[in-house]
């Protein structure tokens, strides 16, 4: 299987991966994201938690992991 180097933006910084595909769930685990309340946005759109395992990151995508508990 041919693996392409896929470049994307994570939390404002360029990243890349060589896997055949990368899901949001995998990206969370790779980054040791441990906030159960984390908000994920893909290209400015909210990604529901139930889609983390099936939502893939593509070339040029912008992904944000946001810890939403702050303020007051």
């Amino acid at each position, binding site marked *: 299987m041919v693996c392409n180097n896929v470049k994307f933006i994570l939390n404002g910084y360029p990243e890349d991966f060589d896997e055949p595909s990368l899901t949001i769930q995998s990206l969370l685990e790779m980054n040791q994201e441990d906030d159960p309340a984390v908000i994920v946005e893909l290209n400015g759109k909210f990604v*529901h938690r139930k889609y983390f395992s099936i939502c893939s990151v593509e070339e040029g995508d912008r992904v944000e992991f946001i810890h939403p508990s702050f303020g007051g």
Partner: protein
Amino acid sequence: MNDFRVLNTRAPRVDAAAKATGQAKYADDFKMPGMLYAAILQSPVAHARILHIDTSKAKKLAGVENVVTSKEAGLIRYGVSPARYDETIFAHDKVRYVGDEIAAVAATSMEIAQEALSLIKVDYEEIPAVFDMFEATKDGAPQIHDEFPGNINAEVHQEFGDTEAALKSCDLVVDHTFLNKRQDAAFIEPHSCVAVFDHAGKLTLYTSTQVPHYVMRTVAMTLQIPVGNVRVIKPYVGGGFGPKCEATPLEMSCGLLSKITGKPVKMTYSREQVFLHSRARHQFYAEMSLGVMNDGTMVALKNKAVLDGGAYTSFGIATVYYSGSLLGGPYKLKAMKYDGHRAYTNKPACGAQRGHGGVAHRACFEQLIDMTAEKIGMDPVEMRLKNIMTAGDMTVNELDMSSLGMKECIEAIREGSDWNNKKGKLPKGKGIGMACGFFVSGAGYPIYRSDTYHSTVVIKMSEDGGVANLLTGSAEIGQGSDTAMAMIAAETLGIPLENVRVYSGDTDYSVDLGAYSSRQTLMTGHATKEAAEDLRDKIAGFLAEEMNVEKSGITFVDGIVKFDDAPGNFEKIRTSYIKEHRGWTDQPSGEFLTFREAARLAFLKGGTLVGTGKYKPHRLGGSYKGAAVGTSPAYGCSAQIVEVSVDLETGQITVDKMTDAHDCGLAINKMSVEGQMQGSLSMGLGECLFEEVKFDSRGRVLNPSLGEYKIPTALDMPNVRSIIVESNEPNGPYGAKEVGEGAIMPTIPAILNAIYDATGVRINELPVTSEKLFMALVEKNRIV
């Protein structure tokens, strides 16, 4: 009963004398040689392209030192969450609300600065604006930010369990909607800042802020100054309540002008500018469905939120998250679904005001519980008691209730208000209502992605051993945090409170994320305790070595030292101390060695004595699915009962009595806890009955003054009975957790439930003015 000597008492605040005598200096009190006065030009229109800005006439005015626009400030974007940096210091391509900042002037007097503003000519091309959160997200609405199509600034969708299936299984599903109005925090001291850029390239800001650390970072980023060359000093602050939780254009403008002119620059917002800057309470629309069984067991909650965020994000992502997440407790639910979105509109930006996104949705939920209780014929107090969580429970949305005195709070207010003898027995026009609420005690993560410690504290012992100097970047904004930290340090060191001096609110002292999310008691408190323990341990070590005893047998209490609970053989130490202090008239005496002598010995043996402490929430592991840090390390909770009288002829509402119980884990300072409870009640009362920021059809604020925007005074407050509940939070220092924001949660719904009890009319839109209630009574009578 406990063994505390300092904690859990009613201690006078360490800053009380300075404030009461006028010695306290606030930012606007600062005067410096050569200081300039700055003013900001703000947009008079709600939505327009900026075609041209001509500052030439302003620059020529005598007394004007400099005029800056986005040309000088640059276009570095900033905001609160890095995922939503959607602001620049000055608007450059367009303005997005009446009040949007366009330019700033520094001059030798405030009058000249204001006159210079009037000489700045801005050519606008007005474009359609939108002011309603529902209209803003319709097709064809004016687009406010190109990167956010449809004016959706943020959205959160969560589901825990199968909510539809759970609702279908219920015996009864009750629906409700709720709408509040945009509010202002109405702190007495407007934003104010003095910026000093020195010859070494260091910028110091003396500014009225809740978050010196975040201001430092934002100013360093936007003005492109190395972060180590930016110092933020928070003087005395006259209230914050949330809107002072972020860097402001005032601070950045002052910093920029000081950098350019090389002189100190001061700016203070007028009250009108405070309203225009806002960053206060959003307008929320809530739509909820609660499913229950006939025996009152709550099963499922469906919750929808629409927020009017104004022109920029500010704290908006967190706000829309909290509108859902904070309803996960304090009641057991099997399923919960939340859909929330925040809309941009062409109005001042809304932010994080006391209680944040939880207040309006808590009001809706607590009314819904009352409505449900009525339908199934259950007492509202009993219904809540039936469903509350207890310590050790996990909410349906994975919030860990490490401590929760909710049952104790409810029982305390039921007894304290004589609920059982009043509910259902009051004459028409008199009503009693109750509600509950809870809130985070600190956020699990910093706002920017980092492994930083959330709080660090340094305690330096004075070389004569007499005073413990506590240095912290935490922010005393009137809530009493300096006193709390002094009490924690005193208790831990075993010395009287008056022997601790707190120096706070300075980013050069330590890293502390500041006063927001009700974090400082727990987080700064932990760091303080650790620093004091470190210092105590060092002193004990030197003592043990000197006296050839076991360190573990040394204790410090009430300013004296015990060796296995006995005086010990310390004569040599005392003799040395006395001889070193020849001529002193307050030489140590008594049966026990004093802490002062012990600390002095430690200095003589080891040099300067410093204890350091730090805190960040404990992380359990790296799995996203695990409950690792989570939303917060602890949660405070509250219950309130309110009694009202309603004049059925006019709709005039009088709040007669409020009984409030709050679980703060452990009350570090009972007086401060009661103060926070009562302050929360007054704020909630104002939001329920009086407060609304009003706009005209062109987006201009109609009531930007405290004469027109009514907040409660002492005359509006009823008798308040404050009951402190202490559940001993395992994650808190000495068991303590928050009180600053949790206590506001029940207030609005308790008043609304009492009004319903008095009149039979359920109001679900704030504020509940007498006119609104009167019209509702007329409608009810007409239908009947």
